[in-house]
Each structure stands twice: as structure tokens, then as C-alpha cells.
């Protein structure tokens, strides 16, 4: 696309069942900051069905313009339908920057669009800044979180980036903000719609979102198996906490992926994070080191987890956790 003529910071607004996802609002906050530096506008690209009444919300969170694509073909996310719609918007409006959430939707749509547009896409960014010469500097973890890399796309437009949910801050909502709403009807080539959505199933068990927990009791290889995790469950019950896990226990099939903390799992910031039998691979630390207070329990006193822990206990989780649960149960009943 034409680099010199390109302008404005576009945000892909992700909705599910008509509900605007938090990451989209976080991106509007960041986009506002970037657009101010560039002296340009924030434009929300909003595909969905029966969503027009929600455009004002996007303006309240920082959009100067909303391109509303309200059509039945866009009711549920499907790759080709969304790729056609968003591609046409990008082609028509020539944005300098396109931001998307690094969700299962953004990480499916982003690369499809980058190939269609023949431009670069930087995945899972944790920091976005504008360089002195007006390019986007995109910083992301690499090598399982062992390394941070700053990536630029100076010769192609748009500069595209996906951003992990929970990393950027939402702007505070301002209902008095004014903006323009543009209705855009994509021209669909329905012969390319090959994938059909049969059913969407919400996992009953996974309604708990570990990123919302105030206290997390997290287990790793040292916890070992289901029986070990039951001990953590008991402690979590007493503390009204949630149980989470390192990658090894998810790979071993002991825990579900949505309970995984780390670079390829979730980023968490609870008030207290118990790291039980977790050695602390850097890819795990990447997901929890921002926790308010970290208590690590591990047999190996050289385990890297102790480098980030506020309190390190060298000991056996299989002994300490049940004892702690028992003592806490007594403490609580004495209150």
C-alpha cells in the first residue's frame, strides 16, 4: 500500500456475541497515545451484526472515527468473512498502523490479512512506541520469553501488530467524547466462504478466568500429578483462590490450557501468587513476574523461581501445602 499517503491508527474491534472484548478497548487506549504522537486519528474497525448501537462506546474509549460493518455475514467470527471485510476497509482507507488483539481471533485474522496485504505483522507485542522518524516500534518476547525484540516495518504499510490482552491500559470512559460513525458495507465474494460454523461451546469448567483471581495457587512439575493438584485445590478453597499451572503440567495433560500461566498461556497479576513446585522457566516467569507478592515453594534452592519470588521457601510442597491448608482452616474457623 502507498506508504506516504498512509495515515491514522486503526484498531480492529473484536466482539463476541455482540459484546466488545476488553482487549479492543485496551487497544483504543494505546492507539490514542500513538495517534497523538503522530498527530493523526484513531479509527475503530468494527465488524459484526446488530452492533450499530455500540459504536458510541468505542468513541467514549478513544476512537475518533468508527467504521461500522454491520451485516449478517459478520455475526460470528469466521476467517474469510472477516478477512474480506477488514481487507476492504484497509484498502480503501490506507491506515499507517493496524492493531489487533492477540486472541484466538486476532491471531487467526492478522496473518491472513498480512499475507493478503503483503505487509509485516508483529505478533503478541507487549510495548508499542513511535520512533523519532514516525515508525511504529513493536516490542515482543521471543525464545519463549527469554529475549525481548524490538521490530519495525519501515517500508510497508500498514504496520500491523497484535497485542496480548491485559497488557495495555484502557483509557477512562468519556461519554461526552465526540466522533464520527461511518457505515461501511463490504462486497462479499461468498464463493470463498468454505468454513461453516456448526456450534460454539462454552466450557463449563473453564468459566473461571485465572487472570481475574486475587490469589493464585499455581503448580508445576514438583506437584507432579492430579493427586498433587488436589492438594492445591484444597488450599485454594480455604483462601478463596484459583488454581493455575505451569506449561509442563498442561503438556502432561494434568491441567487445562486455560489455566496455564506463562508466555504461551496467560499473563496474571494477582495480589498473591503461590508458585508450588515450579522451577521458573523464563517462559513461565514472563506470565507472572508482575504479581504483587510471590511466594515460591520448591525443593531446589537454586530454582530460578526464587530469583523473582518475594518470599522463597526451600521445602517439599507435598508436606507444606497440606499443613498450610490445615493451619489456615483452623485460623479461619477461629475468626
Amino acid at each position: 500500500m502507498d506508504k506516504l499517503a498512509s495515515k491514522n491508527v486503526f484498531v480492529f474491534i473484536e466482539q463476541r456475541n455482540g459484546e466488545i472484548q476488553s482487549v479492543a478497548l485496551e487497544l483504543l487506549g494505546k492507539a490514542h497515545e500513538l495517534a497523538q504522537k503522530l498527530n493523526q486519528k484513531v479509527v475503530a474497525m468494527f465488524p459484526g451484526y446488530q452492533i450499530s448501537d455500540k459504536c458510541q462506546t468505542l468513541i467514549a474509549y478513544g476512537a475518533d472515527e468508527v467504521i461500522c460493518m454491520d451485516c449478517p455475514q459478520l455475526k460470528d467470527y469466521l476467517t474469510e468473512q472477516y478477512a474480506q471485510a477488514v481487507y476492504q476497509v484497509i484498502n480503501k482507507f490506507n491506515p499507517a498502523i493496524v492493531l489487533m488483539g492477540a486472541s484466538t481471533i486476532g491471531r487467526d485474522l492478522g496473518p491472513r490479512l498480512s499475507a493478503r496485504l503483503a505487509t509485516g505483522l508483529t505478533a503478541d507485542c507487549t510495548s508499542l512506541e513511535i520512533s523519532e522518524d514516525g515508525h511504529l516500534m513493536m516490542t515482543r518476547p521471543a525464545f519463549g520469553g527469554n529475549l525481548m525484540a524490538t521490530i519495525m516495518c519501515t517500508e510497508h504499510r500498514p504496520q500491523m501488530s497484535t497485542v496480548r490482552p491485559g497488557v495495555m491500559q484502557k483509557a477512562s470512559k468519556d461519554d461526552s467524547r465526540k466522533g464520527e460513525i461511518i457505515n461501511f458495507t463490504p462486497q462479499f465474494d461468498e464463493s470463498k466462504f468454505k468454513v461453516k460454523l456448526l456450534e460454539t461451546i462454552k466450557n463449563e469448567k473453564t468459566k473461571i478466568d485465572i487472570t481475574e483471581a486475587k490469589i493464585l495457587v499455581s503448580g508445576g512439575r514438583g506437584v507432579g500429578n492430579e493427586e498433587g493438584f488436589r492438594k492445591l485445590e484444597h488450599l485454594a478453597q480455604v483462601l478463596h483462590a484459583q488454581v493455575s499451572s505451569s506449561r509442563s503440567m498442561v503438556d502432561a495433560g494434568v491441567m487445562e490450557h486455560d489455566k496455564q500461566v506463562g508466555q504461551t498461556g496467560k499473563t496474571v497479576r494477582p495480589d498473591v501468587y503461590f508458585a508450588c513446585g515450579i522451577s521458573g522457566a523464563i517462559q513461565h516467569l514472563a506470565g507472572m513476574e508482575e504479581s504483587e507478592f510471590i511466594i515460591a515453594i520448591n525443593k531446589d534452592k537454586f530454582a530460578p523461581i526464587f530469583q523473582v519470588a518475594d518470599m522463597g521457601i526451600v521445602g517439599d510442597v507435598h508436606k507444606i501445602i497440606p499443613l498450610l491448608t490445615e493451619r489456615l482452616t483452623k485460623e479461619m474457623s477461629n475468626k
Partner: protein
Amino acid sequence: MKIVVCIKQVPDTTEIKIDPVAGTLIRTGVPSIMNPDDKGGLEFALQLKDNYNAQVTVITMGPPQADAVLREAFAMGVDRAILLTDRVFAGADTLATSNALAAALKNIDYDIIITGRQAIDGDTAQVGPQIAEHLGLPQISYVTDLKFDGEKNFTVKKETEDGYQLLSVDAPCLFTVLASANKARYMSVAGIIDAFDKEVEVWSADTFPVDKSKLGLNGSPTRVKKSFTKGTKAAGQMYEVDSEQAVEIIINKLKEKFII
């Protein structure tokens, strides 16, 4: 049915450590493995071979030593292996990587293409969907289960943040698969012995028609401007005490922080 699985040799990132003084990655002695998501994808392909007599080809792009993951795939049971190796491919970002793989795939017969969701050294999850776009194929990413009707339709389970979706698609199409989707088979003993006698086809950028300006570093729209390690915060208080005392210390801290 013909299946092509794209695999990648990666450093085992769980084994990478940081030099605390220099703040750089210690990569020596880090084992190279077949990327876990790719292995999940390969397992699905081999199950389709077991049940429907599918023909399975693996392809990888990398340095000559990436031959090792192709031998591993042979030992797991694939029929054909192709190594794309050429200096022209080096330094590629995801788009340039997908350009090379898609151009090569145009010279291979396939009904479906399978890739891993993402590789553990980059975690981008981009190359699969980008290949699908170049080849004009429908894609389903984050696949955790595949059901084949024996003719051409697949019912596919796709993982989402809060559950899953069931999707239906006909071949030709591309899937990106999660490592947790299945338990990949081990190499068989006979397979390991045979793997060394089998021929890995080595393809350069001259083996198939491709626009070389779209390959490698020159064909990459993104560039790494700098890389750095994150500074770690100061370690906290360590206690090497018996379990009773440890529990006492934890409880006192939780009280101090008004957690209990």
C-alpha cells in the same frame, strides 16, 4: 488422500538460560527438537494414514542440520520428506517464510496441509495462515480434534479462550494444530533403523519456481531493530526451615498483608 505437514526444528526453549553477567542467551548445549505443535499436527496426519491410507509428506525449511527432524518424522511413519535449504531463505520473517513454503507446496500434491499452531522459538502463529492465504485455501487454526468422513469433509474442533467451536470444511484446506491435541507417537525401532536409509529430498530456491525478491531477509517486511534481555528484580527473602516453621512464616506474611 495426500497430506503435507510443515514442521520446524526449534531449540528447546525451556532449556535456554540467561547468562546472569552478560545478560545474553546461553544457546550452546540447548537441544534441537521437532516443534511440539508441529508434532501434534504430524500425529493427526499419521492417524489419517493409519485409518484411511493417507500418504504423508513432511516439509521443513531450515539449515542442512534440520535433516534430523525429517529423519525423526520418517521414524514416526511418514512416506516422504523434503528439506528446503538455501542461503536465499535465511533471515526470513514470517511472511518471507510463508512465501517460500507456499511456492514449494505448489509443486507437491496435497488434499490437506497441516502446520503447528506456532513454533516455540517465535510463538507468532503466523506462518500457517499466511501459507493458506498464498495458496487460496480455507484455514482453521487452533485445532484440537479432526474427524474425517472418509471422503472429503472434516469436522474440526477449534480451541477458543473459553471453550471450543465445531467447524466443518471440505478438502482442500489448511489446519494449524496444538501440541495438546493428541499424544504424538514415538519413533518405532524399525522406523529409526529405516529412517537413515530413506532419502530426504533437498530443494533449493532453484528447484521450484519462486520470486526470489520475496524470500529471506530481503523479502521480509519486518526487521529486528534490537534485542535485549529483561532485567530481573531483586530476589526476596529465602527460608530453609522445616515445614512447620515454613507454614508459620507464610501465615504471618498473609496476615501482615491482610489476606487472612
